[in-house]
């Protein structure tokens, strides 16, 4: 980080980084004030992808809104689906079946793997490591095949429902997932050999974008970015939701809070996620994936299309004023998404649509802390730091 300012010339140059820049992965913009190659001031700008998700939440019913959550963090839509329905269910005061909880954990952990893999590939690609990109996308593709078979879509999964999931796992899902988690640690080792002791990778990331634990808490960093500073906090451990207390896993932490530690934390989290997935598959309970409460759960599709009772049931659920209606009240529910704390604050007025939905996105606060990590460093570090934070424009701007 140091060294840039000593060679300062006193002449200022303003550099517009984004919103269309290959390293911004979405429409982010940073205005950099440079002196030579050192960054004097960085001003991040948000809002290019603002879509009014919170306003939409006041006009869609509780099940319709699941579709919107796909589009927040579009790298791990299953985690968003999960976090949102959990908030609604806690507001309703219901708990889904054990099998459903396990399936949700399974999908959330697989999507954590997919999210971290995409992050790994693109962060390395930004710093010139092209092979890592190919390796991680090869693995990610296997996960996306599993997602596609399970949910019917690769990106817009909309898998969860209030009170359950869209459908049970497909036949052969367990074998596919087991095969993946057996082979994955080997594949990740390839990346370790490419990057972890790589001189160029270490020079580009060690000490770059460092932040102390106190500053990280003050800036509201969560997830891998917080844990890289040494704070061993994980919502899955601190406030276990949806049977996370029944699986064992470690919370990896770093020490320096720099881009290199964020890399190491994410790499270890992937291994831990594989462990969780294996435990979930070993102990997967039998039974229904949906709650047996016809006032909340959607009927089976074959029922809705094939029987008049099913059709009426479906109609009653989706018709305004008849479906899911939480009591008057409010609830904030936080889940550990791949990027950090993803919170949904829902205020209900007792009707079928939320009175207010607030999404607490991790990326918004990470992007805010960017100047703190950049200023005083070199312009080339911008790409490394931005890559290490994994700011997702969809959830940044909502």
């Amino acid at each position, binding site marked *: 980080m140091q060294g840039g300012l000593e060679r300062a010339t006193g002449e200022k140059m303003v550099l517009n980084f984004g919103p269309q820049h290959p390293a911004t992965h979405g429409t982010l913009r940073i205005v950099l004030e440079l002196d030579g190659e050192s960054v004097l001031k960085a001003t991040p700008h948000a809002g290019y992808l*603002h879509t009014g998700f919170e306003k939409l939440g006041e*006009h869609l019913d509780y099940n319709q809104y699941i579709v919107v959550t796909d589009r927040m963090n579009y790298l791990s839509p299953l985690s968003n689906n999960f976090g949102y329905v959990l908030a609604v269910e806690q507001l309703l005061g219901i708990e889904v079946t054990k099998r459903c909880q396990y399936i949700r954990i399974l999908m959330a952990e697989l999507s954590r793997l997919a999210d971290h893999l995409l992050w790994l590939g693109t962060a390395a690609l930004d710093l010139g490591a092209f092979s890592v990109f190919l390796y991680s996308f090869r693995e990610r593709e296997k996960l996306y095949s599993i997602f596609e078979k399970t949910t019917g879509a690769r990106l817009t999964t909309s898998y969860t429902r209030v009170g359950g999931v869209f459908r049970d796992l497909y036949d052969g899902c367990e074998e596919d997932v087991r095969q993946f988690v057996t082979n994955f640690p080997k594949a990740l080792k390839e990346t370790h050999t490419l990057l972890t002791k790589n001189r160029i990778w270490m020079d580009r990331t060690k000490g770059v974008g460092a932040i102390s634990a106190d500053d990280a*808490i*003050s*800036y509201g960093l969560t997830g891998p970015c917080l844990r890289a500073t040494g704070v061993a*906090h994980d919502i899955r451990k601190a*406030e276990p939701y949806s049977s996370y207390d029944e699986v064992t896993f470690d919370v990896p932490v770093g020490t320096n809070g720099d881009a290199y530690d964020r890399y190491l934390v994410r790499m270890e989290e992937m291994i831990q996620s594989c462990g969780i997935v294996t435990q979930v598959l070993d102990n997967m309970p039998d039974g229904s994936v949906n709650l047996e409460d016809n006032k909340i759960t959607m009927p089976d599709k074959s029922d809705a299309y094939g029987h008049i009772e099913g059709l009426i049931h479906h109609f009653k659920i989706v018709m305004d004023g008849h479906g899911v209606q939480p009591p008057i009240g409010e609830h904030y529910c936080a889940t550990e998404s791949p990027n950090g*704390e993803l*919170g949904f604050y829902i205020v209900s007025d007792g009707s079928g649509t939320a009175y207010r939905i607030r999404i607490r996105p991790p990326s918004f606060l990470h992007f*805010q802390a960017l100047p703190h990590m950049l200023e005083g460093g070199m312009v080339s570090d911008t790409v490394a730091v931005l890559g290490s934070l994994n700011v997702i424009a969809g959830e940044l701007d909502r």
Partner: protein
Amino acid sequence: MSEENQVEEQPKPLILQKLEANHADALLAHDETRGTVVVVVRKEQAYAVLEYLKTDPELAYTFLVDVTAVDNSQMESELMQFDYARFMVVYQLYSYQGQCRARVKVPVHESDLNIPSVTSLWQGANWLERETYDMFGINFEGHPDLRRILMPDDFEGHPLRKDYPLRGRGERERFNFDKQNV
């Protein structure tokens, strides 16, 4: 949300005990829902209460999770309870030490949208308050850089207010590409 509804047998959460001992005059109401203590405090003492919650060594709510607001203009029950204050500014707090959450709510009248900024307590409050200003028009006094953040700088109105229509006020139809300064 009143004291009469409190169940007698359960011990009072530490945060409520301490707030009642030190900031009793600031409390308008309190509640405990699903493990989270919710306190509604007067705007005048909001900063002092938040500072106390953050700095008190036993409570140590050092993590400001979120700042947002709710427009209660169509929520009659809330309006009646808090003297027809249209907005409720909501702070979500978390204590790493006690591993517990708390929610502080501050009623704000439409006639006086000023509320003290907490950017001096938490760096992360900066953008969260900017977003609340952008979406609801709440004016955070003492904020170093209170500009719009998600909406364009020349946008008029505050989109998350209940009187702002879902499909906008014709901004899309009137948008003129030729006249935009790039």
